[in-house]
């Protein structure tokens, strides 16, 4: 039993030219397959244009925002809930971190509740309960001088403090710059 592998090893012939060339040919076929897979991947992968979802969006001036502590405002076109909390404004990506359903603001309970699996989040996007793995994702938010385009505050994923900003400052949300929420503890 034990000497069988040795016998095999003895019988094994050294690699000859044809075998080497054939192996090289097979390897190159393998690389070709990889090439085709890569090209196929790139071909099938969608590309986003600027200005569409994924670009920077103006949501109005500071004075347009709902007062602090009021229910969050819905911006359906850019998939954002803009929440004005005591710490400042946050732009929450309106897709539940669980399985991609759109959560809604529940006014009675004062929190976001997802209709699919019941995950709940505070107005700031913090995880309360449910199957979601983490707090809500946030987009970078900044305040810009409407005349000069000078950035007055931000961009920041966290709350953007509104105190001290001129009331005509433009609030911009960069929907291409998403920060994942903190995992639930």
């Amino acid at each position, binding site marked *: 039993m034990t000497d069988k592998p040795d016998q095999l090893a003895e019988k094994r012939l050294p690699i000859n030219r044809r075998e080497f060339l054939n192996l090289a040919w097979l390897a190159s076929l393998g690389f070709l397959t990889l090439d085709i897979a890569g090209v196929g*991947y790139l071909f*099938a*992968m*969608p590309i*986003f244009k600027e200005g569409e*979802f*994924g670009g920077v969006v103006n949501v109005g001036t500071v004075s347009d925002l709902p007062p602090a502590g009021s229910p969050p405002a819905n911006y*359906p076109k850019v*998939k954002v809930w803009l929440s004005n909390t005591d710490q400042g404004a946050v732009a929450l990506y309106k897709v539940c971190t*669980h*399985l*991609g*359903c*759109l*959560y*809604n603001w*529940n006014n*009675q*309970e004062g929190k976001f509740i*997802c*209709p*699919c*699996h*019941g995950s*709940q989040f505070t107005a700031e996007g913090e995880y309360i*309960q*449910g*199957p979601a*793995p983490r707090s809500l994702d946030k987009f970078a938010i900044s305040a810009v001088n409407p005349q000069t385009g000078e950035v007055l505050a931000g961009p920041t994923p966290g709350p953007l403090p509104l105190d001290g900003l001129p009331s005509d400052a433009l609030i911009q949300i960069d929907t291409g710059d998403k920060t994942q929420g903190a995992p639930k503890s």
Partner: protein
Amino acid sequence: MLKSLNFQDLRKKAGSAIDHRVRIITAGMGLDELRAVVRGDPPTEKPNPRYKVHTTSFLFHIRPRYYEKGSTILSHTFRLGFFTAFFFFLELFTGLILMVYYTPSPGAAYQSILELESNVFFGQLMRDMHRLGAEAMVIFTALHMLRTYLTGSYKKDRSFTWLTGVILLGITLGLSFSGYLLPWDQLAYWAVTIGTSMAEAAPIFGEQVNLLLRGAPDIGAGGLLRFYLGHVVLFPLLAVLVISIHYYKVSREHGISLPAKYEEGNVSAEVKKNAKSRLDFIPDLLSHEVFLTTLGLLAVVAGIVALGYSAPLESHANPQQTPLDTKAPWYFWWLQGMLKLGDKSVMGIILPTILVLVLLAVPYIDRNPHRSLFKRPWAVSIGILSVILLIVLSYMGLPTYGIEMPAATRIIQDVAPEEGPGPLYEVPFDQLQPGVYAVSENPPDELCPQIDFGCPVFTEVFHGYNDDVIHASTAEGLEPYQQLPNAEAVMVVEDWQNDLRKVTMRITWDDVESGESTTYEKHVFIHRNSGGE
């Protein structure tokens, strides 16, 4: 000259010419042989011309020459594999017809389904058959697999056949799931959103997979086209390829397994010999298949016409609004149940992947050579446990399990769901008498005494609503979110327009935490033509 026109001779010549042509067309069987087949006589020539057909005809080449008699016992196979294939071909056929009217674009898809259901002869029947066939194909694939597992038919020669079968299970689920999106209604849109989000849970490449599937961050025109092409081209091609491999193994290599008792049981040599005797494809198996095919068609049509199965169609897809109680297709409920149990990437991707790998490797893991149920206690108990686990997990995947929906929302959703059928929508329009109906401890037995025959259906629906509110208001031991302290509730029916009534359900209660009076209400509009019969 006259001699060569001998009538007998001419008849013989014509007869043999016709016989020759028939032999070419049937690929081996002459007129006498055909007659013998119809009469149930044994083959007329040697070698057996019925076997010659299997060598010379392409279509018969991929069919078996014979199966062993013992393996065709109904209680051994239940014809589950046959019906899986039957439903696949039914899907190909009805799918091809549906493609004539279907347009895969978000602007036109839903419209084309409506058109198909209301303005095409047998359009609704075709769609119902396609949908019912799809559900049945998933069920029969699973049952076929369970049967193969329990009879130990995956062992030895059949291990590779089992492996292709597991791949076919995946392809079947892919076919079914990719078709789910096509009607472009709320059911389709959100079930597929949830389904593709599960893919996103995969570590590292999850987001890329999701983008490749959806064609954009959200499902849109690109995603619909991708799912459509997957449904009508990619998956059917894969299915035909793998089914061919799977079936060829069975029909030409190892046949259907014999029941274990004939192989290893304590039976006489004569019984064994009889079990191994041949049952020829022509004519026995062939006529049995024709019979099963018509039986299957009858069952599908009866399921639709007599039992009232109909393919669901909800309102037009709205990417801005997720309806309450959204769930994945039923054959993924177990996955949803698992997702409720823990981390998305462990439960949604890693565990299912391990599961699939184990399933693929079953013949290589299970080295027990026996096939009888009683000689494989471990394999059988693991199999039964997995089935039970699957059912429990599926139950946990339901939206009613483990989701803390506030009581008022739950109660009204149960009476009149945002999407799909619900008790209120089944109420005949004339029973929906305008009025204000208040919830109380003792609701009236008959809501509309002013009508001769009363309104039994509406009364029943209202009693359900009434009892739910009273239960939430008075029952002990409920979770805080299930309670409605001091609840007052009404159901108001108003005449809104000609043949249109508005139903308002309003529940007012004291919030459990703050004690403040809180109200939840919902309006539903019901048209004479939209409700029950």
